[in-house]
């Protein structure tokens, strides 16, 4: 039997992303966001996660996906665990948890450029779609 990895998937700007299930703390509906003036541009604010203050990161900006369309708001938040504390990403839509066979993973194409390259660990060839697997690295995700 082939080894598999479990990924939690989500959608941002039509692109599907995945993150290892054991990194994901929870997925919640959108919470009020407190804007932080002067913060690094990747930080979109702070949320109150049951008494814990969690920094929210704008993945669109980090992945250079372009801003959210006028009048639309992120509907979901995905909270992940990193070695330096939790981070929250506002996302468009949360997908399923998928079991992916090890052989379907491939390294990031060498021709890929930009900051996205530092955030993406590998590419996963799912039928009909390519899944980009994110690295759970605090500093890279927060762009500091």
């Amino acid at each position, binding site marked *: 039997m082939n080894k598999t990895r479990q990924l939690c998937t989500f959608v941002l700007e039509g692109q599907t992303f995945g993150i290892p299930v054991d990194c994901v703390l929870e997925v919640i509906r959108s919470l*009020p966001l407190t804007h932080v003036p002067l913060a*690094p541009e990747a930080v979109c604010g702070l949320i109150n996660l049951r*008494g814990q203050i969690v920094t929210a990161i704008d993945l669109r900006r980090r992945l250079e996906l372009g801003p959210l369309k006028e009048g639309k708001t992120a509907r979901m938040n995905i909270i992940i665990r990193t070695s330096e504390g939790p981070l929250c990403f506002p996302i468009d839509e949360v997908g399923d948890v998928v079991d992916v066979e090890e052989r379907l993973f491939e390294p990031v194409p060498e021709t890929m450029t930009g900051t996205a390259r530092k955030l993406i660990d590998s590419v996963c060839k799912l039928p009909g779609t390519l899944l980009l697997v994110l690295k759970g690295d*605090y500093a890279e995700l927060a762009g*500091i």
Partner: protein
Amino acid sequence: MNELLNEFLVESYENMDQYEGSLIELEKDPTSKKLVSAIFRTLHTVKGTCGFLGLSRLEAIAHAGENLLSLVRDGVVSFNQAIASALLATGDAVRAILAQLEKTETEGDLDYSELVALLVSLQKPAAEGAASVAESAHPTKAAPTEARAVPVEAEAVPVKAPVKAAPATKAPAADPKPESKAVKAPVEVPVEASAAKAQPTAKAPEGDSPSGSKASDSTVRVNVELLDRLMNLVGELVLTRNQIVQLTGSLESVPMQAACHRLNHITTELQDRMMKTRVQPIDALWSKLPRTVRDLAQLCGKQIRLETEGAETELDRTVIEAIKDPMTHLLRNSVDHGVESPEERRAAGKNPEGRILLRAFHAAGLVTIEIIDDGGGIKVERVKARALERNLITPEKAATMSQQEVVNLIFQAGFSTAEKVSNISGRGVGMDVVKTQIEKIGGMVDMSTEVGKSTTCRIKIPLTLAIIPVVIVGCRGDRFAIPQTNLLEVIRLDKNLMVETVHETPVVRLRGNLLPIVFLDSVLAIKTGEREETQHLVVLQAGDRHFGLVVDTIHEAEEIVVKPLGRALTAVSCFAGATILGDGHVALILDIFGLGSRAAMFQSTRAANAFEEEAKAQGVGTGALLNELLVFHVGGIRAAMPLDMVSRLEEFSREQIEEAAGRQVIQYGGSIMPLISLSRALGFDETKSSDGRVQTIVYARNGRAVGLVIDGVEEIVRGNIEVQPAGRRSGVLGSAVIGKQITELIDAQDLVRTHASDLFE
């Protein structure tokens, strides 16, 4: 790390604290059998576990110390200074090995045979009869001097092996005399530590001897992280409770109302109790001080008795941590400069033994700590003369100052009265650092003196740093918390109090004085939302600087729980943390010091920008556009950099520099900051300062900081400077004549782009 080893380390560190404390006490009261037994017991506990964990080196030292102690306990050898020092050295050796264990999980290979030999040699009583020597041959088994105790021990010995508390408690009960404690020691120790600790509570009839039982008798070690997490949850429970109470207010169901009422009560009490879990008696800090005082006093040839009052005063552990350094420094100061030498004291008709009193108490919601010495006091005239000499005050001012004011000059930067720099308190860390450290946590410090009699240093600090009183203000729809320790007053801006400008700098006239002001929205670059029509002025104090902050609305005053910001935001110096408001929203807590310095920087940049625009409008090229420069020297030349490119100036010691990814880095403000040697970057030879200090300019952009290593700062100059573009040289903008000297203008942006491009894309 191995769980067992870890537990051993935590416990042994604690034991060694106790060991040291008791030893110092024993020095004062050398005949106390109870103290000797206590010391013996702690060392024995360490030794016992050593054997179990196979730590032979540690065991050997502890064993030698224990042998000596047992002789002291049995009165074979009388306790003296030499023994005290040797036993303290034993404590240090044990700690050193513990530290080694913590780091490498091995005992290390330091040689302690000399110490062991010393301990053995001290076991020979100086001039006592042969009889006692004979006795010492079997020190532990030797019949204690009191015959009555013998049967007790005989009964107790077999108990040793089975780990049972009950028989052990019976043994001392048979003999209610205090001496029984000495006998009890060897019995109790092999029993598992927790059981041993639990005993005093169990044996009520015997436990009535004073100071017999300590607070630690019924405690559980809890991870601080867990407490913090619980704190969070309780905070959240309070919010939920508030919502529920609000929702049920409109309902008419009586049982529901009653349940709500109960929930309300329980939550409040829970919150209250939870807060208490984070406090520690100040003794946690004080118990380490007698050793410091003893060692220092010996070094200066002084006799000093340290007394404490109110050691049980409780403080949040974070506060205790924060006052540790300033407190130690002040105490060192008292020992070094406060108390006179025995000869001087005798000449002045005082007891040759000086006395330092540490006193702590709660008053007006703050904790007051006093350090009182009965030394010669501070010589007011000398302080005044020194302050004049250093240009800290003007002669006019000196004439009108009260004694109290003069004494407190010693907290000013650049003041140090020690005639010669001693290696004790004249370490270059002045009293101004003490003051800054205390003010940082919202405290105050002040000094008063009575010439010839005493000096009192009074520190007032908040009970906790985790919960602070704040005022919530609104600015363009966002809410911010301002700590009340920084807040002086709140005023409504109207036609009686209007913003005016002094050369681009906004000010208000407040009771006849000009107060510089900053607009919160411009400092924080908030562009969303609308300014309110009526605005308010919050008068703030950051150290010695006062300034006004313009905000839209003033909400309520609240006690809030401070929560840290993630690492992504630590580079933003304007915020001290965040908190959760009553409605569950997050609000940022303003750091008034950070805000003040940012505002100052902001204004100079804006002035520079305005100047630049003006220059452009007049068709002047890049000739002159800098108006505030930091001048420094590097690699043998004079160089300068626009002040608004400088985030901070920092000094590090050379040892702090580490190597990471082929680059020199330093730990700075909780993250890693790469260093760039400016002299090497500019193509000069690297010069190394002789004092082992490294001066750096911290350059920060987009939340990333880089340290530019320079040789030393010279001055800050203002004014229009004519820049001569020098040929295209990397990192250099051009040169200019500043203060009649040719000065190279450094292009920090370009430098960082070349030398640390990976950090600033």
